[in-house]
C-alpha cells in the first residue's frame, strides 16, 4: 500500500506525545511528532489532549488526521494502525500476596515493577499473621490491584486458599468506585479455585505461574494478566481511555512496558550481542530496562529528595553548589515539574541530580533483581550495548556531550559500549506498535532513529593518577595513523570521521582492563560515526572525586571540556 500511515500516541502525566509514521519505498519512516499537554486530571477527558497532539501532527505533516468531529480518520487514506501507551494516572495502589518473602514476594515485586504500581502492602503467608489481622490489613490497604502468587505448581496451597478467602471478602465487601483487579500468578493447580472463589468476573486475571518450578522464574508468564488488570484499572480511572481504545481499535500498554518491548527487540536484533539497556530519566521517575536473551530486568523508581540526595547532587555538580542550593532547586522543581533550567547554576544542579537519580534507580534495580550486575561503588559491571538514553532529563540538554557525561557518571560502565539517544522520546511509541506492525520498530531502529551519541571505552587500572594506562592508535583510513596516550584520571575524546567507521587499536598497560577479557589485553575496535565521538574514560571505578568542592566541580568541568561540551 502506498503511503500507509501509522500513528502512535503516548499519554504521559504531563505530556501527550504523538508520532506519525509513513511506509515509504525503503520501509517505515518517522514523518513527524507533536506534543500537547495531557488532560487527565479529574473532570478532564484525555481525548482532548490527544486531539491537540494530533492537531499538531496535522499542522506539521499537512496530512488530515481528524474529521470535523475530531475523530481519527481511518479508512484507506487515513491511519492503518494505531498504538497507544499510557503512563498518566496516579500510581496503582498494589498489594502483593506470596508464600514467602525471598521467593514469591520478590518475584511479584519484579512482576509489577513496570506497571506504574505503588506497593502499599505485602503479605507474606509464612508470617504469623492470623486471618483476622490479614483481612484488616488487606482492607486498610485500599488497593486497586491485588497480585497473588502461590508457590510452585503442585506445591503447598492451604495458606493461599485462606488468603484467597480474605481477598474475596475484600473484593466483595468494599463498595469501591474503581473496582479492584485481582491477578493470580501462582500454583496453577489452584487457579480455577481462585477464579471461582473470588467471584470477580472480568476483574480476575489468571496468569501462568511465574515460578512454575523451584529456581525458575518467568515474568513473561504474568505479563498478559498484568496488562489486562492495568487496562481495566486505567479505563476506570482515566476518562476517555476506553473510548479511545475502541475508536482506534487498539489496547493501551503501560508506557514503560511498551518501551521494554523495544529494548527486547534491540537485544534480539543482535543475538550475539551483550544485551541492550534503556534508561529514561524524567522529573518524577527513572526507568531502567535491560534485556539479554531470556534475561529481562525492568524497574520504575521514584527517587526521594533527602539530605543525602542533596549531598550527592552537590558532589556531582559541574559548578560549586552547596547542599542547600541543591535542595532548594530539587524541591522547587518537584513543585513545578515543567520548570527548565535557564541559568548555568540551575543546569549544573539539574545535571548533577540526573546522575544521582541514575545511581538511585540502578541501586533499586539491583535490590529487585539481585542478579543485575551493578555495584553502587564500582558501577555497571554487566556489559550492555547499546545503552539507550531517553527522558526529559537526558534528552532536553544543551549539548550531546553533557548527556553522554551524565550517563557515563550515572552508570560508570566497564569495558566498551555504545550510547544512543532517543531524541524523539520514541521508545514507548515504537513499543506500542510492535504487535500490529512488527516491521515498523525494526526498520526504524535500522534507519538510525536513535542517534548514536558515542562509543565509550572505559580503561580501569589500579594505577596512580596521571600514570599512562592506555595508548590508542587511530586509523581513519588515511596513510598516517594518530596515537593518543591516556593517563589515569583522564577523559579523552577521539572525534568521529565523517567518511565512515574508524578503527582504533587499544594498547592497554599491563594492569589496565578495557573489557577485552583480561587486564593488559587490547585489540582493534571499529567505531561508527557518532555525535560525540569515541570517549575514553580512564577515571577508574569507583570514580575518584576530589573532596574539596571547587576542585571537584573543576574536575567535572574539565572532563566536560575534554568531550567538547
Amino acid at each position, binding site marked *: 500500500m502506498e503511503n500507509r500511515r501509522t500513528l502512535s500516541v503516548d499519554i504521559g*502525566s*504531563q*505530556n501527550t506525545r504523538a508520532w506519525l509514521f509513513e511506509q515509504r519505498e525503503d520501509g517505515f519512516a518517522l514523518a513527524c511528532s507533536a506534543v500537547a*499537554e495531557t488532560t*487527565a*486530571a*479529574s*473532570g478532564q477527558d484525555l481525548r482532548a489532549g490527544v486531539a491537540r497532539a494530533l492537531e499538531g501532527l496535522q499542522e506539521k505533516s499537512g496530512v488530515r488526521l481528524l474529521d470535523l468531529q475530531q475523530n481519527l480518520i481511518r479508512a484507506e487514506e487515513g491511519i492503518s494502525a494505531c498504538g497507544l501507551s499510557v503512563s*498518566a*494516572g*496516579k500510581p496503582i495502589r498494589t498489594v502483593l500476596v506470596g508464600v514467602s518473602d525471598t521467593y514469591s514476594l520478590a518475584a511479584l515485586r519484579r512482576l509489577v515493577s513496570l506497571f506504574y504500581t505503588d506497593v502499599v502492602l505485602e503479605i507474606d503467608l509464612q508470617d504469623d499473621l*492470623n*486471618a*483476622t489481622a490479614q*483481612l*484488616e490489613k488487606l*482492607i486498610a490497604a*485500599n488497593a486497586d490491584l491485588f497480585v497473588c502468587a502461590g508457590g510452585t505448581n503442585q506445591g503447598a496451597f492451604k495458606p493461599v*486458599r*485462606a488468603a484467597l*478467602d*480474605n481477598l*474475596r*471478602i475484600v473484593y*466483595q*465487601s*468494599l*463498595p*469501591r*468506585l474503581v473496582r479492584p483487579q485481582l491477578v493470580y500468578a501462582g500454583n496453577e493447580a489452584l487457579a480455577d479455585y481462585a477464579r471461582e*472463589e473470588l467471584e470477580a468476573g472480568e476483574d480476575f486475571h489468571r496468569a501462568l505461574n511465574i515460578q512454575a518450578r523451584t529456581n525458575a522464574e518467568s515474568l513473561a508468564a504474568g505479563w498478559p494478566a498484568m496488562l489486562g488488570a492495568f487496562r481495566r484499572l486505567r479505563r476506570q480511572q482515566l476518562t476517555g481511555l476506553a473510548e479511545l481504545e475502541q475508536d482506534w481499535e487498539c489496547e493501551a500498554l503501560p508506557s514503560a512496558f511498551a518501551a521494554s518491548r523495544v529494548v527486547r527487540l534491540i537485544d534480539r536484533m543482535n543475538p550475539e550481542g551483550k544485551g541492550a539497556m534503556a534508561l529514561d530519566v524524567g522529573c518524577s521517575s527513572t526507568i531502567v530496562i535491560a534485556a539479554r536473551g531470556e534475561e529481562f530486568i525492568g524497574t520504575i523508581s521514584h527517587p526521594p529528595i533527602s*539530605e543525602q540526595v*542533596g549531598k550527592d547532587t552537590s558532589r556531582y555538580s559541574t559548578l560549586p553548589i552547596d547542599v*542547600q542550593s541543591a*535542595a*532548594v532547586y530539587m*524541591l*522547587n522543581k518537584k*513543585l*513545578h*515539574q*515543567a*520548570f*527548565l*533550567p*535557564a*541559568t*548555568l*547554576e*540551575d*543546569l549544573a544542579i539539574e545535571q548533577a541530580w540526573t546522575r544521582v537519580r541514575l545511581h538511585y534507580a540502578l541501586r533499586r534495580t539491583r535490590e529487585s533483581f539481585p542478579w543485575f550486575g551493578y555495584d553502587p561503588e564500582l558501577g555497571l559491571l554487566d556489559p550492555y550495548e547499546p545503552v539507550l538514553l531517553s527522558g526529559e532529563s537526558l534528552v*532536553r*540538554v*544543551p*549539548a550531546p556531550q553533557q548527556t553522554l557525561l551524565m550517563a557515563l557518571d550515572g552508570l560508570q560502565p566497564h569495558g566498551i559500549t555504545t550510547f544512543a539517544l532517543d531524541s524523539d522520546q520514541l521508545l514507548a511509541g515504537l513499543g506500542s506498535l510492535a504487535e500490529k506492525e512488527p516491521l515498523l520498530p525494526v526498520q526504524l531502529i535500522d534507519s538510525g532513529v536513535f542517534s548514536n551519541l558515542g562509543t565509550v571505552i572505559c580503561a580501569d587500572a589500579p594505577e596512580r593518577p596521571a600514570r599512562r594506562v592506555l595508548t590508542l592508535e587511530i586509523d581513519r583510513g588515511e596513510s598516517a595513523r594518530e596515537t593518543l596516550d591516556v593517563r589515569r584520571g583522564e577523559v579523552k575524546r577521539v572525534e568521529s570521521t565523517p567518511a565512515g567507521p574508524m578503527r582504533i587499536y587499544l594498547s592497554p598497560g599491563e594492569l589496565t582492563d578495557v573489557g577485552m577479557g583480561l587486564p593488559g589485553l587490547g585489540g582493534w575496535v571499529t567505531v561508527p560515526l557518532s555525535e560525540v565521538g569515541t570517549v575514553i574514560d580512564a577515571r577508574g571505578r569507583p570514580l575518584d572525586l576530589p573532596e574539596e568542592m571547587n576542585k571537584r566541580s573543576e574536575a567535572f568541568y574539565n572532563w566536560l571540556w575534554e568531550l567538547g561540551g
Partner: protein
Amino acid sequence: MGTEILAIACDQQILRSYTLPFAGSVLVRTGQEVEAGEPLAEIKMPERYQVFDVVNGLKINPSNIERHIERLVGEPVKAGDVVAQKSGLISRIFRAPQDGMVVAIRDGRITLALGEKKLQVLATYPGTVVEIIPERGAVVAVQGLLLQGVWGNGLNSSGELVSLDAAEPAAGKKQPTADLQGKIAVVPHVATKAAFSALLSREPAGLVLGSVMPELLPDLEQAPLPVMVLVGYGEYEIDALSKAMLRQMEDQTVYLNANEADASEQSRPDLILPGKAQVSPGLFREELRLEVGRRVRLLGKPYTGSTGEIVELPEEPEKFASGLVMRTVVVRREDDLIVRIPRENVELILE
C-alpha cells in the same frame, strides 16, 4: 506541558468537589447552603472484621462442620448471639462479640463484619451546593477571595487572619504564649526549625508561610495544624499580588485548605475568604493562556516569587544562559525591569 495557573483572585467563583472513595449516601441537595465542617456524604462501614476458625476453635471434626454453624452468610448478628457451637459434655461456643453480620463461611472459617463506623466527607468552606455527584458527594461553590499556594500538608482549618513580620520575636522581646490561638497566621519566611517550633508554640489554627528553607520540610509535613507555603523553598519574598490579597483578608475569618498540591489533578492548597455575592452556578471558567497583558509569577533564580505583566511572546525560541533553547515570555516586572524567561518558568495568574 501547559502553563501552571495560580489563582490570586478577588472575586472568584470557587468550586470544589468533595467525594467519598466508596459509593455511599449524599447528605445534601442542590442549592443547599453548607457550613465548613458540615458532612456532605457518608458511608457506613464495618468497624472491624473477625475471622473465626471453627475447626480449631471448637475442636471439631471438619467433616461435621455444617452442623456446628448456626448462621448463614449475610445474616445479621447481635452481640452475644451464638454463631457456632459444639454441644456435648464440654460445650464450646463462639458468640458474636459485637453487632454485625456474617460475611463469609468458607473452609471452616467464619468471617464477621462487626460494629459500624462512618466515613464522611466534610465541606472545608461555607458555600452553596451546586452539583450532586450521585453516591459520592457534591460540588460546593462560593464567591470570594482566593489565594493559592504551592505546598500544603493536607490539613485544613479556619480562623481570623493575622500577619506577623517574622517567625521569631525581635531580640530581647519575650515570646508570647498561645497568642495566636484560633488564628491563621501569615509569616513571610521561616528559616530555622527553632523559628517554626516557636510559631507552633503560639498555637495558631493554621500557618501561611511565604517561603521556607528545605530543612524544614519534615517539620512542616508533621505539623499538627494546616500549613501552606505560598512561594516555595528558599528565601523569597511574598509577591506583591499575594501580599495585597493577604492585606484584604486580614482580621477576617478565612478558610485554609492546605491540601497537598497535585500537578496531575491541577489542584493546589488555598486560602479562601468567602464573599457576600451570590454564586452563579453554570458559568464556565474562561480558558487561561499566556497572552500579552496577562500577569504572571516568575520561577527560578533570580526572579522567583516576583510578578509582572507579559509584554511580548516571541515566536522564535531563544537560547538561555544554560545553553537550552526555549520558547520565551517577556515580562515587565512590578519594578519595571523587563525580563526574558522560558515559558515553562512562569505561573499564569488567575485574577
